[in-house]
């Protein structure tokens, strides 16, 4: 029982409640990942629908979608601590859970290595294991630094395609998690001029002239999907299609901004800069 060692220390940190939470509900994919990365996964009693990594998390009861939580559903697992990512809701549910005197800790969202370190520290403090948190944050930062040190001077233009449903391109603009990870991995977002994820025209894809197309990894035949993409009129003329540079990565790993950020940066950087390192 690893957390027993941390007990005396936690008692100091969580002075008012003094007791270590034993029944934790984790709301939000990256929050759940952090709990497991801290080695505290056995203290979780429930998770939300977006918490799908690691696989152990999927065995926990699911209290619903992160923004559509049911108050009685959350109370039914008798939690003594609720960890939520920013924006968990609805507000009515959060208010009722506060009324029910369940301690709640909100973990601020952010798409930088510093924000991830802060998320880890918040979760670790709430769980009463700040030392483990410091270790984890340091190792994540070291992984990111190592991955970034290997990146050369080339800055490929990367287009992140969120979906290609019926041939319509939904791509990432400025201020998105996709843009943040592309820049961390030594690329440049091929799109600017709008914020968030938006459907864009075929001509805009051509004008963006991406060197690389980045997509989320889904079930199915990727060879065929890549052939479709290269035959797509919008992509056919881009350098990415001509050089067959299509990168697929697991969505939660790529965009989660959790404890696997180092792994994500290193994997994406290696794919973006194949000749280097």
């Amino acid at each position, binding site marked *: 029982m690893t957390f027993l060692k941390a007990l005396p220390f936690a008692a100091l940190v969580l002075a008012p409640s003094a007791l270590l939470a034993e029944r934790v509900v984790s709301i939000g994919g990256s929050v759940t990942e952090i709990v497991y990365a801290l080695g505290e996964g056995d203290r979780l009693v429930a998770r939300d629908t977006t918490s799908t990594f690691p696989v152990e998390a999927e065995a926990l*009861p699911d209290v619903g979608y992160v923004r559509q939580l049911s108050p009685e559903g959350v109370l039914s697992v008798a939690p003594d601590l609720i960890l939520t990512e920013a924006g968990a809701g609805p507000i009515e549910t959060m208010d009722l859970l506060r009324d029910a005197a369940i301690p709640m800790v909100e973990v601020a969202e952010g798409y930088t290595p510093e924000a991830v370190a802060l998320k880890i520290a918040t979760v670790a403090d709430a769980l009463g294991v700040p030392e483990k948190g410091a270790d984890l944050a340091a190792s994540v930062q070291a992984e990111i630094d190592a991955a970034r040190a290997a990146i050369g001077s080339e800055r490929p233009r990367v287009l992140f395609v969120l979906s290609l449903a019926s041939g319509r391109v939904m791509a990432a603009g400025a201020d998105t998690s996709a843009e943040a990870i592309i820049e961390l991995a030594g690329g440049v977002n091929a799109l600017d001029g709008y914020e968030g994820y938006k459907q864009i025209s075929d001509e805009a894809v051509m004008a963006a002239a991406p060197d690389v197309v980045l997509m989320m990894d889904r079930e199915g035949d990727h060879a065929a999907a890549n052939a479709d993409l290269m035959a797509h009129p919008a992509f056919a003329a881009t350098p990415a299609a001509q050089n067959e540079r299509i990168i697929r990565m697991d969505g939660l790993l790529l965009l989660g901004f959790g404890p696997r950020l180092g792994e994500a940066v290193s994997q994406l950087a290696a794919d973006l800069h194949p000749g280097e390192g």
Partner: protein
Amino acid sequence: MVAMTDIGTASLGDRTRFARRTTVALTVLLAIVSVTSLFVGATGISPFAVVGALLAGEPVDTAARVVILDIRLPRLAMGALVGAALAVAGVVMQGLFRNPLADPGIVGVSAGAGLGAIMAIVLGGLLPPALGAALGYALVPVAAFVGGGISVILLYTVATKNGQTSVATMLLAGIALAALVGALSGVMVYMADDTQLRDLTFWGLGSLAGATWSKLLVAMPLMVLGIVGAPLLARSLDTLALGEVAARHMGIDIQRMKRIAVVIVAASVGAAVAVSGGIGFVGIVVPHLLRLLTGPAHGPLIINSALLGATILLLADMISRVIVAPAELPIGIIMALIGGPFFLWVLLKRRGFAGV
């Protein structure tokens, strides 16, 4: 227009007595379902534990108190009121348009309320922070209610000329308005980010999960207004079934009745949609079932529809709470999933029976 004029005097007596018995049966059923709903939920907490402790003056477990008094109880009240309001509004609209297919959506309340809610979800962040904070989670319901009200006033104004409201014009203008509202909603959907899209989708599926005492306090008077006001229209609606001209000859102030009907439906459905989102079907299925059972006379039809509407919504909400516990399945899905096939079965059975 369809078979609502068959108030045969011979069968009237039998049906009136049967309708009265139905009212008693439905009241008992609603009472049973209401009490049951206090026992059903993901936590398995029993209201006895809380009530017993309260009566004995003992301290009550906080979580148990919140579950019974702040989650299940307001939800019971909200579900019953929303179900009754939607069903009663359905009866009034069907009587006014003399068409069993009319539902509250026909006067544009639902579409307008939907647009209001969508705008609040997508554009809510643009409000001055002070105003946004003051409204809090009331923002979406308030916007939905305002949206519903505006579209009803618009439709009523378009359809009224020289103090006469044409229900046919109202119907057609309603279709035009629905197209416009759909387009504006589309603009909002285009502007929305991913999380807002999820919120929009869930709002459209309907839920009683957000029922709180403060919301209930605001929405209750409006829904009660509709439920209590509708029976006053019963006689006029019965007469209107013979046609507008005949009703006018029989001394009914048709224009006044239309105005009251529109106000009642706008207030009660506006409030119901605002607090529960998109819950369909109650307004059509409930009155139709009762019309098959106890006949078209509006007096008993309105009362029985209120009772059955409340009962059905509470039953659906109980399923919604426990079927995927600890998560929750939106009630709109359950209503349509059960209501659709059931209604179809009733229609098929009736068709076979009548040999039409």
